[in-house]
């Protein structure tokens, strides 16, 4: 009986979401109350289940396709994190969604997403996990699409990109199942030989695409401007990272034996580094608060992938720690963006400015979260990034250097953002802006404090959550809690941060305002052409894919026209011509008819008698 409790995190949010759909429009407060209640219940369940170790296995379709759920330290951790974020975002959404007509759907989809994520995380059978994973496609689409008239295109783009990668993952699951003869995740353990690598790559594609790394990232910036903001704070920032990196970790740690020298590991690291750099370069030149943050979300995933890809204990620990840290501070950042949007009415950096005085609490939370993401000690981002650097350095200097370069740009970009939005002179439209209401402030403050907590007292997450996941065997006696052992790295980080600050000050003076602080990078020789092209979405794989599809459909259309012509024009014309010819032959004179008959008879007779 005890194991049936595992159904609770999956079913309860679903049921409550259905209840939200059913509540009539009039009782608006009831909807919000229900949403908060649901999130709270979910949190309670998560806390109860925390650190549990339960396995539930139900025979389903037979032949290894059973429906099994497994609660162990990793999955319970993710569930707790999801529940926590869910509760905070719901609380935040109460104020944000007030007055928007899609509120009811939003809460419902939110709860459904939580339920699906719980299911995907708990699932121990690849097939069951796939089921929940795919379900997320629909809720993501729905939540983006309700954002407005242009949102539909962004939602479709998300659906297509994530859908295609999900197909790859399905192929990977099939191949894995075939290789391992079972679909139970905890029982799979495959070497990375030829076929194994193919399965690995396919599965990885699914995982990192969900997490939002390059080259599957292009829907996130578009969604960020169109979708409702709490969605952005919840899914791309938190849930998807949690889920994607969770699966990535399970693939690399449990299902396949990712060795430090293998090609797969190098591939992962390359993906990670490329993501870090390219995304952050794009982030640098953005002029919209939310788009900027979304590019950063993409960039930070690179760190996580890099960390796990190193396959050394430091790197893995760093990657996982970064996962949870990122979820914390990125959602915090998005929440501040939401507050700004709600109070000042816009997220265009050209229009904002000087909000620091008007919205002090928001500003402080922003500073804390921005410092975390840049890797400033003693916040949580610093520690996780140090671990990732450690791991990267163990694998190669190049990776380390590139990761640090990414940090530089991250810091520069956030300095620009903070300056443009919060410092400087406030324009006339922003005169009346006040601080955000309490239900919106509360989650931000909580998150900011967790940033500090996880930073200063980092033994708590590391010893309590992350290291048990990796397991004592892999850890090999390392303990990453406390201050990073390699002081050299710390010093390099501090130097890089200082350089970023200097760069920003220089840029701000040169450009004349906070926004222009990054312009000198923008206009740098090679970079400017790349930036222009990127802004025109030439590099966007989605657009390239659309073009290719367009060519194919043109060809198919031409073929169809050809076949149509054959049926519509050629055949009837032919029939018409022969018909008229026959009619001409019937001239009306019986002698002609008689001649035909006699000729016909002659032919018949000759035919019949020639063989005799």
């Amino acid at each position, binding site marked *: 009986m005890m194991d049936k409790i595992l159904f609770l995190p999956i079913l309860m949010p679903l049921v409550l979401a259905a209840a939200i759909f059913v509540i009539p429009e009039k009782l608006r407060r009831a909807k919000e109350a229900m949403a908060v209640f649901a999130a709270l219940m979910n949190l309670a369940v998560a806390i109860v289940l925390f650190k549990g170790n339960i396995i539930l296995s139900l025979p389903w379709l037979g032949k290894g396709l059973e429906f099994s759920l497994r609660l162990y330290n990793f999955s319970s951790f993710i569930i707790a994190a999801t529940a926590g974020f869910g509760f905070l975002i719901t609380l935040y959404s109460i104020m944000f969604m007030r007055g928007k007509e899609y509120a009811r759907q939003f809460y419902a989809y939110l709860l459904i997403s939580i339920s699906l994520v719980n299911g995907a995380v708990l699932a121990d059978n690849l097939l069951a996990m796939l089921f929940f994973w795919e379900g997320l496609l629909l809720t993501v689409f729905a939540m983006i699409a309700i954002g407005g008239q242009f949102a539909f295109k962004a939602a479709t783009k998300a659906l297509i990109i994530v859908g295609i990668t999900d197909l790859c993952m399905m192929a990977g699951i099939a191949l894995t199942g075939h290789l391992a003869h079972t679909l139970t995740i905890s029982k799979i353990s495959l070497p990375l030989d030829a076929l194994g690598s193919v399965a690995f790559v396919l599965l990885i594609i699914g995982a990192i695409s969900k997490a939002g790394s390059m080259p599957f990232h292009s829907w996130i910036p578009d969604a960020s401007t169109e979708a409702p903001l709490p969605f952005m704070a919840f899914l791309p920032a938190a849930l998807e990272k949690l889920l994607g990196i969770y699966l990535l970790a399970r693939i690399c740690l449990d299902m396949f034996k990712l060795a430090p020298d293998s090609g797969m590991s190098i591939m992962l690291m390359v993906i990670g580094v490329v993501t870090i750099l390219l995304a952050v370069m794009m982030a640098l030149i953005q002029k919209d608060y939310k788009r900027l943050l979304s590019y950063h979300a993409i960039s930070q995933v690179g760190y996580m992938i890099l960390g796990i890809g190193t396959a050394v204990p430091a790197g893995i620990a760093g990657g996982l720690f970064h996962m949870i840290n990122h979820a914390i501070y990125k959602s915090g950042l998005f929440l501040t963006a939401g507050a700004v949007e709600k109070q000042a009415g816009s997220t265009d950096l050209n229009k904002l400015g000087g909000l620091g005085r008007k919205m002090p609490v928001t500003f402080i939370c922003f500073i804390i979260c921005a410092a975390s993401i840049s890797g400033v000690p003693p916040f949580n981002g610093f520690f996780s990034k140090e671990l990732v650097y450690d791991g990267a350095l163990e694998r190669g200097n190049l990776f380390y250097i590139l990761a640090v370069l990414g940090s530089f740009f991250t810091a520069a970009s956030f300095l620009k953002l903070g300056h443009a939005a919060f410092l400087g002179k406030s324009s006339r439209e922003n005169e009346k802006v006040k601080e955000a209401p309490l239900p919106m402030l509360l989650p931000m403050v909580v998150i900011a404090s967790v940033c500090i907590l996880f930073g200063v007292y980092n033994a708590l997450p590391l010893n309590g959550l992350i290291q048990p996941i990796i397991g004592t065997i892999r850890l090999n006696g390392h303990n990453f809690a406390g201050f990073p052992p390699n002081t050299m790295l710390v010093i390099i980080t501090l130097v890089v941060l200082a350089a970023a600050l200097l760069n920003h000050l220089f840029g701000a003076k040169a450009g004349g305002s906070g926004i222009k602080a990054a312009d000198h990078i923008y206009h740098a020789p090679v970079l400017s052409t790349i930036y222009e092209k990127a802004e025109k979405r030439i590099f966007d794989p989605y657009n390239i894919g659309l073009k290719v599809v367009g060519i194919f459909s043109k060809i198919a259309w031409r073929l169809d026209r050809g076949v149509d012509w054959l049926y519509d024009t050629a055949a009837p014309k032919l*029939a*018409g011509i*022969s*018909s*008229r010819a*026959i*009619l001409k032959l*019937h001239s*009306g004179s*019986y002698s*002609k*008819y*008689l001649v*035909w*008959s006699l*000729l*016909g*008879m002659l032919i*018949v*007779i000759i*035919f*019949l*008698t020639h*063989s*005799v």
Partner: protein
Amino acid sequence: MFLLFILLPLFSLIVLNLPFRAMMKKAAFWWLLVLLALQVYLAIGYVFGFFGFDLNAPIYPLSFSLNVDNFGCVALLSTAVVLGAVLLAAKYIIKEEEKLFNFISLLFIILAGSNGLALTTDIFSLYIFIEITTVASFILISFDKEKLVLEAVFKYIILSAVATVLMLLSIALFLLVSGKTDFSAIHAVLINSPHSLIVMFATGVFICALFIKGGLMPFHGWLPDVYSSAPAPVSALLAGIITKLVGIFTLMRLLVSVVNFDNPIRQVILFVGALSVVAGALAAAGQSDFKRMLAYSSISQVGYIVLGLGAGNALGIMGALFHLFNHSVFKSSLFINSAAIELQAGTRDMNKLGGLSAKMPVTSTTCLISSLSTAGMPPLAGFWSKLIIVLALWASGNYGYAALAVIAGILTLAYFISMQRRVFFGNIKEEFAGIKEPGFGLLLPACLLSAITIGLGLVFPFCLKLLKF
């Protein structure tokens, strides 16, 4: 017993015409109906085995060699049905009593001739009955003595007489070879000497003669003219009985019972059949005269029957027989519809007609049903017969011909739908604004025939016994 089928009409004719002519006029119509009903009943009854006694017992002292088998019964049945429809239509169309009486007398002759044709077992009697039927049809066609009709009839006479000559030529040669005129005797001789030159020659000539009488391409020259200019009930009669029985039924008889039906003959028949199907359909597609289009369509359908024959297996012959019956039914229905249109709208030109379905719903519906049956649309009867023919062709290895039959079916559908659209659907022209349905006399036969088509189509799978032989 079946001799009565022939004798009764003949005697009735004599009786009706000689004494008391005045009184007999009304009686003639009803008596013919009774005879026809009797014929239908007996034909169906025989096949389903209703009768316990042997119907072949000769009636002394008249012993005329007759035999009835399932072939014959189908012919008897279709004769009766078509004659019934024509009778009803004629009663409505021909208003003067005198003319109607003459018409009915001629119908008696045709009845006698067709029945004899169906029942005979002797090649010379076959010829006699063919001539009886044909001559009666000459007179029927030229009943109104209009200019166009006479022209067409003249062509028909010449060509039909030439066909007679050819037929007799081959009968003489058969006589030369076998010494008797009995089917079975000739058959016995022909089986034993299949490839001798004279036999092949005679067979070929006979077949061509039957092609001319039956209206297959390229021997069909008289057919479109005659069908389109004859009065409407007579066209129905021609298309339903005369061409079919005199031409095609005789061909069947010949091939099955008399001649050694081997491959060269089969090839000839297949080719001619296929040619008729395609050329007939193409010519029909280009017509603007309603009845002429129906004539070419008849050529096409007869081609189907002959294709079924050419397949050479039992399935093919069964399909051919069934299609013969179906064709009689739906072609008569179509001609009766054309009579209705011609009567009410005054023209046969399809380009001038249009939108008649609003004013003449019954005619439009029966026309649609018959057209679809011709094209082979399930679940009407035409579908079944065409299906059997195609299957027979496929089973006998003639894949190309089978494919051709199917493709021509599409063409058939095309021109019929085009006809339907031009005549019935669309917008009605002003000059036709006042027309209405023809009277009950024309609607009844059309409805009856359509009902037979639908009923047979639905019931056919249970009726396979009818055509086994």
